[in-house]
């Protein structure tokens, strides 16, 4: 598998299957781990980072994940950005320096970042609302990796991490949710405040500090010490259904109160995406969000959720440039984006035959 191959496939987590997948795009768990016999990445010499990299690569190989390792240090900026857009690496890893990389499985469920803020950042994603299943899988993966490496761990403080905010379980349990109904009903700030009160974090699609786009939000824990992995997961599995109910109610209100207006908005969004000759990334996200809502409410019936989910990723700048085979300026990207959307959405209609 090469990066170019990946332009023809998409991650399993975009498939739009699994429980509650009309709202929950995917469930994701990340574990922060460090090797016990090396300084953390920010204090490690180049030689030490190479040592970490080779130990982790060997452990990944021994774990028989069928994963491919990409040397992020040797990559072009465009390729790094491509991996960020696909949620395979963080922007911190992409923008970092020195020996670093990522192991990815073909379905892109698993990614193991090496020499990010912590030596290992293990990530597991599945489409839909399936946190216990994700935990079972990543727990097992963590055990298999640990067969061949020694983790930095203390019996009183748990897994030791470069930043004390991750110490303990080193876990971040999150769901990516699509909340166009709540956003339209101006209820999103209320959701934010309620979640903050119970110590859950809400952020945009690309993690820390990023703006929400296309009405997608990530809800996750941020405290990692003093609660077990199962307790943290239970907190999410208890709270997220309430948000889903809130979103469903908001969608219902839109349908009953302003059905014609909503139908018009969704149809126009779909129409623009199918016919535009040049379109910005921001407008695309906004319109795709409307179309996704429209499919879920039965207002659009000739397009699959999976296609729309993929388009959120495939209309990003680096993907379009990879597809083109080189760098494109903003204007050229807007043209390429519109052309790509027209062809993908024409395929969607072909499904009816």
């Amino acid at each position, binding site marked *: 598998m090469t990066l170019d191959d990946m332009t023809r496939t998409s991650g399993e987590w975009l498939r739009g299957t699994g429980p509650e997948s009309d709202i929950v795009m995917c469930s994701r768990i990340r574990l922060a781990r460090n090797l016990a016999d090396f300084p953390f990445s920010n*204090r490690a010499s180049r030689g030490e980072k190479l040592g970490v990299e080779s130990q982790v690569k060997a452990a990944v190989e021994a774990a028989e994940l069928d994963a491919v390792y990409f040397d992020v240090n040797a990559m072009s900026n465009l390729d790094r950005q491509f991996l960020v857009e696909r949620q395979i690496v963080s922007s911190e890893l992409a923008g970092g320096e020195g020996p670093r990389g990522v192991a990815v499985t073909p379905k892109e469920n698993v990614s193991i970042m090496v020499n990010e803020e912590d030596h290992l950042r293990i990530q597991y994603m599945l489409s839909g609302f399936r946190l216990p299943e994700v935990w079972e899988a990543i727990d097992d993966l963590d055990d298999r990796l*640990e067969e061949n490496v020694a983790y930095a761990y203390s019996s009183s403080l748990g897994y030791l991490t470069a930043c*004390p905010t991750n*110490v303990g379980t080193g876990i971040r349990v999150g769901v990516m949710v699509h909340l166009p109904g709540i956003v339209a009903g101006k209820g999103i700030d209320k959701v934010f405040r309620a979640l903050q009160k119970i110590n859950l974090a809400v952020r945009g699609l690309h993690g820390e500090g990023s703006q929400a786009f296309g009405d997608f939000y990530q809800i996750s824990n941020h405290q990692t010490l*003093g609660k077990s992995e199962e307790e943290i997961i239970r907190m999410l599995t208890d709270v997220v259904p309430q948000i889903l109910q809130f979103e469903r109610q908001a969608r219902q209100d839109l349908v009953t109160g302003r059905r014609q207006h909503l139908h018009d908005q969704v149809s126009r969004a779909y129409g623009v995406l199918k016919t535009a000759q040049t379109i910005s990334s921001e407008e695309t996200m906004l319109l795709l969000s409307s179309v996704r809502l429209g499919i879920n409410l039965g207002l659009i019936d000739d397009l699959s959720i999976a296609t729309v989910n993929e388009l959120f990723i495939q209309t990003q700048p680096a993907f379009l440039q990879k597809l083109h085979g080189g760098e494109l300026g903003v204007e050229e990207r807007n043209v390429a984006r519109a052309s790509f959307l027209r062809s993908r959405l024409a395929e969607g209609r072909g499904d009816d035959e």
Partner: protein
Amino acid sequence: MTCQRCQDEAVVHLTELVDGRRRERHLCASCAREAGLAPPDSPPDLGLDAVLGALIAKHVGELVGELAESSCPDCRLRYVDFRAGGRLGCPRDYEVFRTGLMPMLLRFHGASRHVGKRARSRPGAADRLRLRARLRQAVAREDYEEAARLRDQLRPKEPHA
């Protein structure tokens, strides 16, 4: 209100719950100090430096003095550097900076003790971290003989089968 021990003005007021019983204490500054309830005397000469020093100690107490200047023998990170950058340098920092870190952990996580998954016990790992630190220091002072010796010790004894 007057001090319960002498007749000076009380400046420290404390309500304690001992075995479910409420106990109030009102003490003047010097009696409070004797009872271990107040900071030691401030220096008699309250020049500007001293005032500033006292203010800084009050607000960023942990950033001056012993803890701030302490550093990890393995990774050489100083506590002040950690507070500036927010990242620790190696696993051992959690022991070295324990006094500074524990209140921080309690504030952020609302807890100070790990619950959950446990790592396997790997007794040799911390020693290897120490060897690696000595190797780095040997290279820095161009003691290549020592560096070669340490490198040999760090070489894996046998490949993981």
